[in-house]
């Protein structure tokens, strides 16, 4: 992290006039490249939604909208029932987050600290699901959700169809378990000697010490549900219950382009906003993932 770390090019080379010139040329080049490749498409989307339908179809296109129409955004909000679909997405994401936090944390705590019989077998079974790519199993998973064994209930068109499968997240569970493994044993034992029960230890000792990993798991859980497409597409055939990602695709066929683009912008705002707020934590979390495997 310190500026003294030596990389490919030595500080001495960079300090020379020629090195400085090359550095600033490359730097400017990368800034321009990033602006064009990553920011410009986003700019194009946000402003495209503000153009009139004629202007958006015009060649050559206008770089800046001639008149700023917010009607694209308001139409999208009303015509595409965005409040409904956004609300559905919020409910699905929040529920999946809560279910994961409760069940994955409890299971990770049990596997890490309570020594259940066959704990190793169970952990092995959970880790084995990492080897089985989730998407390849969507069809049998769908059939299971459509008709749960023993109780013969269908989770289709029900937020539970998102919430319960979200718990079966081996990656998050393993992340939690490994973090719990590293908690100092003597603190937990001290709490036990003080007469705290297992639930009490989890709630008052383990969880407060696990804030960083809970933050990472929360973000992963929320992003995963918000970004998912194939699974909610299968689960929600009922238009009124679809999350925004599915609704956007379903409605994209027969809606005016500017309105669709506006809806796309609105659909992106929550996750992008969350990213900008928590960017340091998110980026640190992803970077840490590489070194900790």
């Amino acid at each position: 992290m310190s500026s003294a770390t030596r990389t490919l090019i030595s500080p001495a080379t960079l300090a020379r006039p020629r090195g400085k010139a090359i550095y600033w040329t490359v730097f400017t080049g990368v800034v321009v490249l990033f602006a064009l490749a990553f920011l410009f498409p986003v700019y194009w989307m946000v402003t495209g939604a503000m153009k009139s339908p004629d202007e958006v179809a015009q060649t050559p296109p206008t770089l800046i909208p001639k008149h700023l129409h917010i009607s694209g955004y308001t139409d999208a909000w009303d015509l595409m029932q965005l409040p409904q679909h956004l609300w559905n997405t919020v409910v699905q994401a929040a529920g999946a987050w809560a279910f994961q936090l409760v069940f994955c944390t409890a299971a990770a705590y049990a596997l890490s600290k309570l020594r259940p019989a066959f704990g190793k077998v169970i952990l092995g079974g959970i880790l084995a699901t990492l080897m089985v790519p989730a998407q390849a199993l969507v069809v049998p998973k769908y059939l299971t959700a459509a008709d749960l064994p023993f109780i013969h209930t269908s989770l289709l068109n029900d937020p539970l169809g998102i919430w319960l499968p979200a718990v079966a997240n081996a990656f998050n569970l393993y992340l939690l378990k490994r973090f719990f493994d590293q908690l100092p044993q003597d603190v937990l034992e001290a709490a036990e000697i003080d007469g705290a029960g297992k639930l009490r230890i989890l709630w008052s000792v383990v969880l407060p010490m696990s804030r960083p990993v809970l933050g990472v798991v929360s973000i992963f859980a929320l992003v995963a549900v918000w970004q998912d497409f194939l699974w909610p597409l299968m689960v929600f055939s009922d238009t009124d219950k679809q999350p925004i990602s599915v609704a956007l695709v379903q409605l994209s066929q027969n809606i005016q382009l500017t309105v669709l683009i506006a809806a796309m912008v609105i659909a992106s705002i929550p996750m992008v906003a969350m990213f900008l707020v928590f960017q340091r934590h998110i980026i640190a979390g992803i970077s840490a993932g590489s070194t900790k495997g």
Partner: protein
Amino acid sequence: MTKTAERRPSPAAVGARQVPAPPPAGDRRRRRLLDQARAYGFLLGGLICFALFSWYPAIRAVVIAFQKYTPGSSPEWVGTANFTRVLHDPEFSAAWRNTLTFTLLALLIGFAIPFVLALVLNELRHAKAFFRVVVYLPVMIPPVVSALLWKWFYDPGAGLANETLRFLHLPTSNWSNGADTALVSLVIVATWANMGGTVLIYLAALQSIPGELYEAAELDGANLLQRIRHVTIPQTRFVILMLMLLQIIATMQVFTEPFVITGGGPENATVTVLYLIYKYAFLYNDFGGACALSVMLLVLLGIFSAGYLRLTRSGEDG
């Protein structure tokens, strides 16, 4: 020492309940059972979800692959009929060809670009946070939105892609609407949308290379490219391989981009294996065929996943 010796109760005192007697064996067993029950109480919710939505579907995929399965009626065993039917579907070979080409192109484009980008970013001393945020921004845009956005860019009329080419006085392209360019167009979308993660992870790996190695190499007269070849790449070999396997696994399951942008067309040029699975299940109502395909995909991906897991294990040891 002497004090404890003094305080040691006489055998008679032990008998007189001053020190609790060791619990009888039955009690201990009950205690242990209680502990187990408690442990499983904590595990239960997670176990049920894993059983229902991970383990059971994996078994079921294999079972249904050998059945004629229609929801609502009892399944019939049909042997390998599902596999033969799927194998004779002209879309089958197209789907596999497309998926493998997509994966290969994604490795060439989607792997080389973030790799080089991370190398360059690691040398820049200014605006570090800005670059990291900007490169990761597309990852945070919902994949459906990225797909729809690029579908609009690829529009042959007023799409941004062709407008840019016209602006540069270059010949225009059919992009996702042409049979021979569609797949590449989708690879570009997937690369744009996903490379942020690769760049950040690779960047972190680059930062863990000890600076002395570069210094030593430079003293030995190694130029920039030689330093990349003999220091950077060997030092990050593990992360490179890990990212590569992860990307292969992810791109072989590509669905959203072809589904949203091209609908599998033109002329099946972008039907992928997962898309075909979806079609079998939800268009043809042929769940047996869909599961047969899933099993094939599963076996192939399982090989890559096993490689990935072995790699991460050995990385932890070394």
